[in-house]
């Protein structure tokens, strides 16, 4: 899954370790999410959204365009 984490972090001039401390996770967790090697759980995704004051779908992109209509 693609995400904007690295860009959002850079805009605030935070290191991976600083972001990790703000999220209360390890630096390896931030690195793994940034590089797309690991998709965060829903609670962590919400934590990220609150921290950056953005909707989850603006931080993460699962590659699907538009709304699913259930079909």
């Amino acid at each position: 899954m693609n995400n904007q984490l690295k860009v959002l972090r850079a805009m605030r001039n935070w290191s991976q370790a600083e972001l990790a401390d703000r999220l209360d996770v390890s630096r390896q967790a931030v690195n793994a999410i940034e590089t797309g090697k690991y998709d965060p759980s829903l609670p962590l995704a919400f934590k990220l959204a609150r921290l950056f004051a953005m909707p989850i779908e603006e931080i993460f992109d699962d590659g699907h365009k538009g709304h699913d209509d259930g079909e």
Partner: protein
Amino acid sequence: MATKDMTMGNDPGKARAPSMTVMVAIAIGTALFAGGFAGFNEAQIEAGDAAVASWAAPLIAIGLGGAVLAFYVWRRADGFRSWSRRKRIYWTSLIFSGALGLVTALLLQDGPGDGLISNSALTPTLAVALSLLWVVGLTIALALYHRSADDHERYAYHQSGLAGFYAFVFPCPVWWVLWRADMAPPVDAMALFGLSLLVNAAVYLWFKFR
């Protein structure tokens, strides 16, 4: 709103953060010192010169390593105080597990066997002590660990746990049926345990640090 949210968490910029590399280096230095001292002691014994008891080397090394670590913690006290509760519990569980392993290794090394990896007989007292150390110590360490593991850590732990399980499930019945057909020696539980742990550690490190 954004400003408020951004300042809600810890403020890591204020305190000088402790370095994990330094703490790992202190641990490695302690182990190297203990090994070097033990080697020197062995050489003294072989040469017929005076030597100290075998437990002295690790004890002195732990003392020195502990003193260096205490000094580092004291120098970086503000940084450690800024750690979150989760991070403190996590590192406590890791240090506790390491100490548990070291004490177990020392007891086995100094026991009546041929060293760390041996099937030779143990005294009942040592066997009961080691069993209690393993069960009680591991229970405490794991309780602390599971309370403090973050999202990504849990993922690595589950993947490696599954890999370790497979490393037991595949070879064990194969070995057993081969033994029943006199095509292999009797199943060695500790060999399978060791294999399972090795696979577990390798997969954990891969998912955690790749």
